[in-house]
């Protein structure tokens, strides 16, 4: 009888679409997308002397494949080192317990991430376990410092562009 | 009718009483001490040359515009002094027919007439529908209920606007130029409606119009306003034969008279530069 229902439906659809877009953005493009499988993860701990620029939610990778992310970073007061909690996807539950964790930099100036180097042990890490073997973040400043002190005279032979090009070469252990 | 004329100064049954009304809009004086009465149940016409503020007077009666001085008493309430809420209460009892009908363009005819009801009364849909259809029937447009305002002719739109104005059974209807731009048939239809509403429902009507022939048919009483003052009043036939320069010019349709043909201007000869040459 009156024209109301048509635009009421239109308005409703529009509002739903708007909220659907918001939900899509919130879940698919943000870090929520990483944590969305929170029920399907387990946590591991690792201690580092120095975490460099590592941030919470940074990726955790094995052989370059993302398997989880950094859940939290805290300073352990007694030992004065960083306790990093990693949340790992449940499907990667067969990480040997003698694996080592290290903090790498993606590219020269990229973000830092935790790389796990699998060991050979037949037993696997379980929820809440701590990885014993860790390697701190490589600090470019330190590397440059070392290079200037130790390696400086050695490579002075043909290098016209000195320090800056050398560190990445030695950054791959 | 003569009795009504006799006690024009203070009639107790005047629905609208205007006393000492003074209004200026910008630099222009619209009213300069206007007094008039509209008796209950009458049809009163207000006439006057264009630009004398006839529509402004209607706006004073509805409180859309506040005068600089004077009082406008409608049904015992002094309109310029009313609070917004009291004013809205009063307006629910006044119907206003706009010159260009002022139908809400995005509602159908039915919804236009139903609009005041929907806004002010929580009526069951069925009752509302019956009221609206009754009013549309009264103006002869029940069949057009589902049309949109853009599909109506000028006369039809005005009748719809009239149906909307009477939907709350008001005590007073103000018609702002109800006959302008209507063909003779539509004009007679509107004329008949005004008369019927007045006679059957006892609605007091105030009519602003120029159409002398039409006014003679319906109005009980005519006020002629010019230069911000009341210059003549009386029954239409009486007024037509009254011997004042205003009525003569207005009802005789003379081009020149108290209302000058020339808009006020400096001396013609001077402006053309002849004055100096002749000197």
């Amino acid at each position, binding site marked *: 009888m009156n024209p109301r229902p048509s635009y009421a439906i239109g308005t409703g659809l*529009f509002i739903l679409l708007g*909220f659907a*877009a918001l939900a899509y953005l919130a879940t698919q493009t*943000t870090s929520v997308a990483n944590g969305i499988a929170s029920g399907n993860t387990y946590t591991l701990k690792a201690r580092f002397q120095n975490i460099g620029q590592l941030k919470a*939610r940074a990726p955790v990778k094995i052989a370059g494949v993302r398997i989880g992310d950094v859940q939290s970073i805290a300073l352990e007061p007694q030992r004065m080192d960083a306790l990093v909690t990693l949340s790992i996807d449940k499907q990667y539950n067969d990480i040997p317990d003698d694996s080592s964790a290290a903090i790498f930099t993606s590219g020269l100036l990229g973000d830092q991430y935790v790389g796990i180097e699998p060991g050979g042990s037949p037993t696997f890490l379980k929820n809440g376990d701590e990885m014993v073997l860790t390697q701190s973040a490589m600090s470019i400043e330190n590397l440059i410092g070392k290079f200037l002190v130790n390696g400086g005279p050695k490579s002075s032979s043909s290098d016209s562009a000195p320090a800056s090009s050398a560190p990445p070469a030695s950054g791959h252990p | 009718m003569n009795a009504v004329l006799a006690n024009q100064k203070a009639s107790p049954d005047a629905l609208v009483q205007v006393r000492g009304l003074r209004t200026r809009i910008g630099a222009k004086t619209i009213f300069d001490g206007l007094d008039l009465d509209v008796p209950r149940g009458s049809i009163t016409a207000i006439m006057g040359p264009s630009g004398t503020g006839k529509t402004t007077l209607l706006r004073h009666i509805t409180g859309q515009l506040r005068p600089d001085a004077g009082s406008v008493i409608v049904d015992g309430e002094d309109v310029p002094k009313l609070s917004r809420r009291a004013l*809205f209460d009063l307006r*629910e009892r006044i119907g206003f027919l706009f010159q260009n009908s002022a139908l809400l363009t995005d509602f159908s005819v039915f919804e236009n007439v139903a609009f005041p009801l929907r806004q*002010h009364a929580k009526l069951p849909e069925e009752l509302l529908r019956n009221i609206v259809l009754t009013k549309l029937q009264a103006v002869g447009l029940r069949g057009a209920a589902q049309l949109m305002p853009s599909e109506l002719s000028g006369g039809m739109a005005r009748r719809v606007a009239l149906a909307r104005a009477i939907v709350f059974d008001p005590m007073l209807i103000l018609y702002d130029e109800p006959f302008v731009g209507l063909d003779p048939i539509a004009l007679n239809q509107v004329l008949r409606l005004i008369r019927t509403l007045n006679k059957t429902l006892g609605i007091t009507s105030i009519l602003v119009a120029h159409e002398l022939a039409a006014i003679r048919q319906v109005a009980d009483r005519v006020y002629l306003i010019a230069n911000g003052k009341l210059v003549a009043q009386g029954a239409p036939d009486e007024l037509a034969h009254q011997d004042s320069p205003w009525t003569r010019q207005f009802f005789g349709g003379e081009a020149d008279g108290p209302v000058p043909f020339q808009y006020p201007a400096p001396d013609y000869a001077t402006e053309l530069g002849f004055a100096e040459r002749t000197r």
Partner: protein
Amino acid sequence: MNANLRRNWLLQGIASVGDCGLFFVAVLGALPKSLRHWRETCRQVWFVGAMSLVIVMTCGLFVGMVLALQLYYTLSIFGGTAALGTVVALSLFRELGPVVTALLVAGRAGTAVTAEIGLMRATDQIDAMGMMAVDPLAYVASPRFLAGVIAMPLLACVFNAMGIFGGHLVGVTWLGLDNGTFWGNMTSTVSLHRDILDGLYKSIVFGGIVSLIAVFQGYTAPPTSEGVAYSTTRTVVFSSIVILAFDFVMTAFMT
């Protein structure tokens, strides 16, 4: 003479800003009453929001696509194309989404609202409402204002989603970026609170600005065809200026 004229012009400008502020207060004051007219508000959301969907979605898609192209070029200079998804998403959420949507809505819906109200004024519809004891502020102005505030953030979300889709289309499908890199970098950087919600706050404010200016211009439009035409133009001009100015201020506060 000229100085006098200019001062007059300046004073008029200040006065109209003041008028707009007072009008804003009046509209806010009429909001509670306008809740009774929720149907009208709903109709306006449909008009401002749903009817703007096509233009907003199309523009969102193209803005996302062109962003991806331009940024890919720029990022490839630094060898950072992996960050394409992040950069596209951040530029969209924080800046382009709210601002471009607001400009589009000002052009598409704001002008229509101004012209509609201006014509309603010219044809006495506003006065007629007053005569029917319906407060035109509560029935005409407030619902349109509210509709702008509701519709704008939703439209901005749709715009953003389409922009991401467009950026993905260009970056991954055409330029051959790795799908995982695109999403992974984006998801690890974009924050719900800092990026998406900040953008939403912006667009809520922009929604208020656009609809306030549109309604105000319509309300104060001289009741002639020329007057309505000028007011419509002013709606676009003023909305654009105020949106960009507020964008700067809000960005400065938020970061």
